[in-house]
């Protein structure tokens, strides 16, 4: 990993068109400004972890279809009770 030290208002440049500027440091929090073309995805890593977790919780073929059938049965039973 490349390690760089930057002060507030200093910038690093990635490739031709991505700039990351340190806007401020407050306690343990660093505020970064990212300038990048719209087609470049800028994501917090934990967001990718969320997607991964959601995928994992949705990935059982048999489990999901069984749950869908159970859901349909329980809803049609409730309809029948009305």
């Amino acid at each position, binding site marked *: 990993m490349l390690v760089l030290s930057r002060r507030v208002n200093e910038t690093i440049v990635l490739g031709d068109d991505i700039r990351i500027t340190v806007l401020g440091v407050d306690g343990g929090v660093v505020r970064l400004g990212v300038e990048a073309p719209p087609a470049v*995805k800028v994501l917090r890593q934990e967001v990718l972890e969320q997607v991964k977790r959601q995928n994992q919780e949705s990935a059982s073929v048999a489990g999901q279809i069984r*749950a869908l059938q159970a*859901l349909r049965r329980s809803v049609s039973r409730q309809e029948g009770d009305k």
Partner: protein
Amino acid sequence: MLITTTRNGREERIEVADDDVVEMPHGLLGFEEHNRFGLIRDADLEPFILLQSLVDPWVGFLAVDVTLLQPDYELVLSEAEEALLGTHLGDLSVLAIVKVGSGPEDTSVNLFAPIVISRRRRLGLQVVQSHLSYSVAEPLFSGEQSGLLALSGLG
């Protein structure tokens, strides 16, 4: 093409159209090695589609066409994604993964990271849509989406 699925809780072979076999070169997040899927369309599942992994018959995802939920869903692709999927919007299907819970209220849909498929190239990617304010777990059957209840045989 014959594929193996566990949709009925055991391994069985079923036929899907060649057009419904899709390469996913990057897999899905957390399922990077699952790079080939069969799309199972079945009257029993409507309006959902089953994305069946061809790597592991026990892995797959229920999904729903995003246009059924959000007709004006605004998809943004990076240059790398466009290079793989092409830029012809009419060729792209946008599917959101559904997570079925124990009741309608905890059944959700991932509008944040849909699966985008080029039908012509038979190629799919899970594409994070960070410009939108959707979450990975939007309630499927509330508010604007409540019309889907009837579509799903749940209304």
